């Protein structure tokens, strides 16, 4: 059954009736070729003949088939024209040719090369040597051209103080003998001055002394001679390009440079292991750097390619995208463009997200497990959310957290109200620390990072406030409050330190002033000094109040939010709340009383508190001076402030106790 039949059965158009007979013919031809193959088997191939090469097993037949007589071989003498003497006749086995009469070379007669040749010469004069084959290897005999010079030429052009003609001849001979192989020439160079007569005795002695010629000396002399002889035979201006180049090379040979090069080469050979290793590592480094730049370049090129948006033929016509089909093709285009750029990572999430993104809106419970787990990890790592809430809430809420990964189709996200966020325990973070942490650790971290003395002070303060250093129930809100509290305590302690410092400074200044006054002979005025001290203390407290107020505001704000949730901490915070509230009270009370002065004073105090500089001491004095003037006018304010003062001083006394 041929494929044509199949087509007919299936009503496929296929090819018409035209090509059919031709095909049939072809197959028939193929069949004829393949003998020994069952017709059925051959039919299996259909139109295409089966590609079976018939095995030919006629190995032995052929071997015995050719019953030609064995080839005859003979020892045939030959000569080698490359030889100097040409007399040596060697013999090798060659196939006997019919042209040559078999009797011609008689092995018995050719015992010896020499008599054999004589015999042949005698036998048939000139014909026989011509017949004798020449070695096919004779053509490989090449000789170098060594410059020739006559006595006159030597004397006119080649004379050299360092070289006698004799030695030059010797050198040329060596060059010819060793075919310009300089290492060998140098190795075998052993020139013994021939003329031992008295006249040149001193001369030869000198030559003997520096007879150890270096390879460079030999080369230099040879090139000198060769170049000069070249120029003699054909002047430089008439030389052709190749000759001129050769001449140029030979004349520019510098033995000193060559020697220096060899010295370098020798030094390079004598490197130590470390040097060699270092060089190797440096080379490796260079190679790596080069490879890296190449990679970098490639990446940059890739980036540039990526920056070219995928050119789709439909970008101009937006109407094509208005149908879902068009959108689908666009997506496909983008994906193939991505694929061609080998952006597999993006491709992967993109391709998967398409079906998954539709999921959550339809059935929130069926989030992929992996994502859910990741969500809960993130929540516990943050230490804010309640993981139990998360696991149920994340199905819907978590999705919006990574909109960037959704690529082409950002999924719908429901905006949670603040209330909902609170109840679900959802919190957003800019950055999450890696891995889960304990909330309690955050408190500990604040405490442990402080120095020992500071740590002791903080715990003292906490004790004072009746807040246990270890939280019994570290919920999110409690921990937050505790954190705030600790920060505030820290600030408080800092300010306390500052105020102590200022006190000390003021005392010092006063002592100085008293000294000065004493020196000036002024009778000390106890009242003035008293008021000064009072004022100063007042200013101090005001400053203190400002700081406390600042702190208190924060703490109070916290307390409001946290009051519902923390039974223990909230209660503790109340103690703290007292002072800031009072501070507030004082500030509000002062404002109406001495509007201009009180506000000014307070501002100055606050400013002082903020700039924690030593220069404040000066300002402070100004502040006190101001107060001195103002006090009489605003008695009511003072009274109130006095009451506050009492409580504050109470507090400061408490602090001093510490």
């Amino acid at each position, binding site marked *: 059954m041929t494929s044509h039949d199949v087509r007919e059965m299936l009503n496929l158009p296929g090819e018409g009736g035209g090509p059919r007979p031709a095909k049939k013919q072809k197959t028939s031809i193929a069949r004829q070729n393949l003998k020994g193959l069952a017709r059925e088997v051959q039919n299996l191939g259909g139109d295409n003949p089966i590609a079976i090469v018939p095995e030919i097993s006629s190995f032995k037949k052929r071997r015995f088939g050719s019953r030609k007589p064995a080839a005859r071989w003979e020892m045939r003498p030959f000569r080698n024209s490359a030889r100097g003497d040409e*007399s*040596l006749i*060697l013999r090798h086995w060659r*196939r006997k040719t019919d042209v040559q009469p078999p009797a011609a070379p008689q092995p018995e007669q050719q015992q010896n*090369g020499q008599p054999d040749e004589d015999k042949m010469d005698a036998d048939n004069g000139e014909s026989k040597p011509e017949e004798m084959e020449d070695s096919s290897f004779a053509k490989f005999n090449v000789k170098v051209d060594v410059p020739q010079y006559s006595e006159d030429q030597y004397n006119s052009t080649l004379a050299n103080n360092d070289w006698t003609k004799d030695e030059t001849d010797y050198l040329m001979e060596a060059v010819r*003998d060793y075919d310009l*192989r300089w290492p060998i020439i140098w*190795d075998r160079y052993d020139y013994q001055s021939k003329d031992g007569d008295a006249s040149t005795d001193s001369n030869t002695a000198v030559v003997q002394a520096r007879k150890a010629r270096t390879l460079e000396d030999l080369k230099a002399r040879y090139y000198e001679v060769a170049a000069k002889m070249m120029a003699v035979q054909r002047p430089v201006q008439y030389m052709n390009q190749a000759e001129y180049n050769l001449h140029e090379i030979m004349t520019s040979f510098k033995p000193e440079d060559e020697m220096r090069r060899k010295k370098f*080469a020798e030094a390079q050979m004598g490197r130590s292991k470390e040097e*060699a290793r270092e060089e190797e590592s440096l080379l490796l480094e260079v190679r790596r750097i080069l490879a890296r730049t190449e990679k970098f370049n490639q990446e940059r090129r890739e980036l540039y390619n990526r920056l070219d948006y995928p050119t789709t033929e439909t970008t101009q016509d937006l109407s094509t995208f208005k149908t879902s089909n068009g959108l689908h093709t666009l997506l496909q285009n983008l994906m193939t463009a991505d694929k061609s750029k080998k952006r597999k990572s993006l491709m992967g999430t993109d391709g998967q997200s398409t079906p998954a993104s539709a999921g959550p809106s339809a059935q929130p419970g069926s989030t992929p497990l992996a994502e859910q787990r990741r969500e809960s990890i993130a929540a516990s790592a943050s230490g804010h959310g309640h993981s139990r809430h998360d696991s149920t809430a994340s199905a819907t809420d978590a999705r919006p957290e990574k909109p960037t990964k959704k690529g082409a189709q950002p999924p719908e996200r429901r905006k949670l109200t603040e209330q909902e966020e609170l109840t679900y325990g959802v919190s957003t973070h800019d950055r999450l620390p890696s891995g889960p942490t304990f909330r309690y650790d955050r408190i500990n971290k604040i405490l442990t990072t402080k120095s020992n003395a500071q740590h002791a002070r903080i715990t003292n303060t906490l004790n004072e406030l009746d807040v246990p250093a270890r939280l019994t129930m570290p919920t999110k809100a409690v921990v937050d409050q505790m954190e705030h509290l600790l920060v505030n305590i820290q600030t408080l302690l800092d300010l306390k330190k500052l105020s102590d410092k200022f006190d000390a400074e003021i005392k010092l200044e006063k002592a100085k002033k008293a000294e000065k006054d004493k020196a000036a002979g002024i009778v000390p005025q106890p009242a003035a000094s008293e008021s000064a001290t009072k004022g100063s203390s007042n200013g101090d407290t005001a400053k203190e109040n400002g700081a406390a107020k600042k702190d208190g505001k924060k703490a109070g704000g916290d307390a409001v939010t946290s009051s519902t949730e923390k039974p223990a901490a909230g209660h503790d915070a109340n103690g703290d709340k007292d002072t800031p509230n009072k501070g507030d009270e004082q500030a509000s009370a002062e404002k109406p009383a001495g509007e201009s002065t009180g506000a000014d004073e307070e501002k100055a105090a606050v400013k002082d508190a903020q700039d924690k500089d030593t220069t404040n001491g000066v300002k402070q004095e100004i502040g006190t001076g101001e107060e001195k003037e103002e006090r009489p006018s605003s008695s009511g304010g003072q009274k109130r402030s006095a009451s506050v003062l009492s409580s504050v001083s109470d507090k400061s006394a408490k602090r001093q106790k510490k």
Partner: protein
Amino acid sequence: MAQPLTTASVPTDIYGGDEVSALVLDAGYCQTRAGFAGEDVPKSVLPSFYGSIKDTNAASGSRNVFGEDYIFARPDFEVKNYMSRTESVVEDWDTAVQVWESMLLDRLQPERRQTQPSKNGLNDGADGEGDVSMEDAAASAENAENAEKPLAESPLLMTEAPWNQGKAREKAIEIAMENWGCPAFWLSRTPVCAAFAAGKASALVVDVGGANTSVTAVHDGMILKRSIQKSHVGGIWLSNQIRSMFDSNDPKIEVRPSYMIESKVPVDAGAPSQAILRKLNYELHPSFRAYEDERLLTEYKESVVEVWRGPGRYSNPGNEELVKTQPGRIFEMPDGSNQMWREQRFRVSEGMWDETAQLPTASEEERITKAQTVPELIRACLNAVDVDLRPNLLGNIVVTGGTSLLNGFNDRLNNELMAMYPGMRVKLHAAGLTTERRFGAWIGGSILASLGTFHQMWISKKEYEENGAGIVEKRCK
């Protein structure tokens, strides 16, 4: 029609070969090899040691027998060597001619002898030994006179040590031309041949032979004479190291070659031998004992001795301890005593590399100096050649010679050279086949003599007649 080429029509030219039925002769101190050019192994390998039998009935003196088969215990028998121990060049020319003739004529061309039944010794009833290859000096001289020259059809290529002297070279061509009537002759140096055997025209040839170790630089098929370095560190030196080791061993180990043993019984390792020794009713020449000892020690070297492969010297701390933990080798002496050899087998060969590690020797001249160790020889050799050649030579180091077959020799050599020339490419070329390593020079000669391009090099008989023996100095450079 693409037909497979028959052997008849295969162009041998593409290999550059052109056989002219040349003979190749390579003489060394321990062995002499002879064979046909173009073959890969010498047909005939004889020890250079020969037996000299004192004739009891005649006053003429002695007659010589050649070949391992004829060296056995008998009265009035002395084992000699025609080569010089220190130089590895021919010392006793008369015997050399006999040895060579017995090889080139009798062993390589036996049919030649058969044509002359009166001469072949088969019919000589007089000497009961029936030495076919025995060559009588007088007979051979007579031979040379009346018969046509025995080697008139075959060019002869001989090898020589690189330090061979002009006199010896002239003597060689004289023998070839006058005695044997060779149509052509050539003298080639062993390092060149060894380099050719490795397929290289330029190489640094490290030839670690029986009597000598030589390091020679070969450039373009010619040795560089200044680079020749020679030392007696070789197989025989190693044997002496082994003797020294045997002597210092506790209990002392006796070297008893098998000819001394009548019968032996198996004994435990380390136990004294219980062999019954053979009693000879005649006195043996000590040279025979020495020869037999050497054979036994050679066997020991082949089967036990190993070279510490490095890196570093064997004497470096820790190496010996490491070796002691590894399995050793058992060697059983002909007398049945056997022992496991562990660290000793490394210690004997260490002197080749580190002169401080050599064992005490019997004579002072046996001691080697630092300059005679193998790495130092190579260093000296390289320092004597042009700087430009050195990298190429280091990249083409040909290791040849029978003693280089010691286990680990090449590894050690490689390590030493890498340490000596860091950053250079060091490449050793050592034939894998033992025959190729042992007969490296002969194989190279075989290649050379069968090359078509070599035919223009031969010194022909005519040239010899015209120029005299001095031509060999002029041509074979």
